[in-house]
């Protein structure tokens, strides 16, 4: 079996002292920062990106994945203990998890989240190992028009599946692409959107944009309603689950894993969609649906498993096609590019040690999450009580030095300041900044494939619709847009009619 050979290769890469150490540090740091109030996985990863740049690519990616799992688990911890979900996908966990905590069952809720995440993560990692290589092989047969169509489909789908206004989200994608095109044009060397500044010749620094929008902008948003939040944290005890609890969580975890693995591959709100739908499924098939919202352990197990499975399988399009399905994956691609690796189907074949090493490390990372977090829960609880007014200046300082360290260039610091303001304004106007980041990452690739496709077709734009694969994908993209726009248009009309 080829897959076992590949996994063996992966483990031989991941199970070195160095890489296990980086995985450990990643999970630890990710949890440490993710558990701090108001910091979800995206700002956590953005903040910690610079410290991975000095590492070799495999170690850097392993550490970043560890940070991601850690941050996500940290978000679940805050959701359960203080009803403050760090990101939208753990909103669902907060519903029943927090109720469990109030009933003194915080330990059971946290253990359920950890076990559910670990199981789902393991299964989804295996799926990733099985399905990624054939998908990459398929993608290798794609020509530039197919690639262009695939990217358009990915962007449209991520917009269509996310919440909020579709038109605004599309506008954010386009704006992101435009920003992503800044810097020297690859073909002619002409500087674009650089305002004659030599420092911008390489384009807008990705880390500066991500940290500005998701770090600095987020801080200002948190300072806006800086009310005296007294954090009451119950003592966490009883991490062991009773036999009855175990019986109750097996089903939800299995269903959540299945659902999450499938939905996670889809672009856009994979993790969010999967946790929400896992919750509603559990509630629907439960024999005592009245317990949901009042501390039902199934309401923690299902969504947490789905959430983590989705987080894992969202690596599939990122690693095989080079297409980010969510902001976290956009950050990962950014990290790959900075490491000098062009994400795409070639990674599997040309750098199997990198690819399989990452996959093996995912399993190790998930395992570490359980080993690390259950015993250390006391420390995390104490971190939860750190007041925000002490915390945020430290984050500002960390972002500053972090972004500066990328290129040793002050222009990146100023860029971050600018995008902090931009990020805040966009959020105030209900324009989600996440699609902007996706567009920013995909932008240069999109232009590249468009140019190549037009060169092949001798300037004939119908090439996208005469080649079957690209026509199908563009058709799907249009279909997705129409479907999403229709009901909302209708709803808006109805509301207008009511006046």
């Amino acid at each position, binding site marked *: 079996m080829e897959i076992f050979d590949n996994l063996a290769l992966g483990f031989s890469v991941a199970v070195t002292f160095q890489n296990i150490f980086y995985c450990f540090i990643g999970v630890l740091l990710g949890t440490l920062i993710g558990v701090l109030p108001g910091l979800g996985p995206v700002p956590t990863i953005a903040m910690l990106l610079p*410290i991975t740049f000095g590492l070799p690519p495999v170690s850097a990616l392993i550490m970043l994945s560890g940070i991601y799992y850690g941050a996500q688990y940290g978000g679940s911890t805050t959701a359960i203990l203080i009803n403050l979900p760090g990101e939208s996908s753990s909103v669902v966990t907060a519903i029943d998890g927090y109720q469990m905590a109030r009933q003194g069952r915080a330990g059971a809720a946290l253990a359920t989240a950890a076990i559910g995440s670990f199981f789902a993560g393991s299964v989804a990692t295996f799926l990733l190992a099985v399905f990624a290589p054939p998908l990459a092989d398929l993608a290798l047969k794609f020509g530039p028009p197919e690639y262009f169509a695939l990217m358009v489909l990915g962007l449209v789908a991520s917009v269509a599946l996310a919440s909020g206004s579709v038109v*605004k989200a599309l*506008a954010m994608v386009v704006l992101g692409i435009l920003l992503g095109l800044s810097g020297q044009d690859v073909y002619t060397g002409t500087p674009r959107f650089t305002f004659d500044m030599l420092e911008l010749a390489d384009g807008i620094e990705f880390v500066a944009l991500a940290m500005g929008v998701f770090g600095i902008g987020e801080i200002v948003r948190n300072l*806006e309603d800086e009310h005296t939040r007294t954090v009451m944290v119950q003592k966490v005890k009883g991490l062991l689950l009773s036999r009855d609890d175990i019986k109750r969580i097996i089903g939800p975890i299995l269903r959540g894993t299945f659902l999450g693995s499938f939905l996670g591959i889809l672009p856009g709100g994979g993790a969010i969609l999967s946790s929400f739908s896992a919750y509603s499924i559990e509630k629907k098939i439960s024999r005592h649906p009245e317990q949901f919202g009042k501390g039902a352990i199934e309401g923690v197990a299902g969504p947490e498993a789905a959430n983590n499975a989705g987080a894992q399988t969202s690596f599939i399009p990122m690693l095989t096609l080079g297409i980010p399905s969510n902001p976290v994956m956009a950050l990962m691609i950014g990290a790959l590019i900075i490491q000098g690796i062009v994400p795409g189907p070639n990674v599997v074949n040309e750098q199997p040690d990198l690819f399989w090493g990452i996959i093996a490390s995912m399993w190790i990372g998930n395992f570490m999450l359980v080993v690390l977090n259950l015993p250390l829960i006391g420390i995390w609880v104490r971190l939860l009580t750190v007041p925000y*007014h002490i915390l945020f200046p*430290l984050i500002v300082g960390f972002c500053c030095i972090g972004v500066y360290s990328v290129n040793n260039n002050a222009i990146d610091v*100023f860029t971050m300041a600018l995008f902090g303001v931009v990020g805040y304004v966009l959020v105030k106007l*209900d324009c989600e900044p996440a699609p902007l980041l996706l567009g920013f990452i995909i932008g240069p690739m999109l232009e590249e494939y468009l140019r190549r496709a*037009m060169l092949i077709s001798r*300037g004939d734009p119908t090439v996208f619709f005469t080649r079957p694969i690209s026509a199908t994908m563009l058709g799907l993209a249009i279909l997705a847009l129409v479907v999403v726009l229709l009901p909302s248009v209708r709803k808006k009309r109805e509301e207008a009619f009511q006046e």
Partner: protein
Amino acid sequence: MTRFVKNPKEVASGLLIVFLAAFFAWQAMELPMGRAIRMGPGYFPMILAGLLGFLGIIVLLSGLTLRPVEAQDETQKIGFWHWPWVPLGLVTLAVVVFGLGIRPLGLGPSMGLAVFLSTMASRRFKLTTALLSSFIMVAFSWAVFIKGLGLPLPMLGPWLGGY
């Protein structure tokens, strides 16, 4: 005015998007366009700017016509005057000061200044905690970024007698 602008947030977003589209189009105009078969550096940006402008106009129009805002519906108002201007300004200033100071002043003073300025953004500012935070962050960044990651950066810059 309130009659004409049905949804201030949508209108403001639309105007902002249209403005950005115009800005990018203006910038792209200076670039060689090329033709479809061999696109110049200005080709794709111009298409995108056009698309952005189109989307902005849709947002703008929907804000002018659809979904009027109820008087009590606070979520659709921008609340421009209630924005946290002081924190926004101070945090941005802190970052800018760091960027300006990092070369001439060195890591120590610029980090200290940036953290101190940020602490002032909170309503619960206290001088002792602010100084303590600044000190901790200076020590931390020295340990991690200069000692740990070997960033070629002096603690004290040329203006303060460093190298």
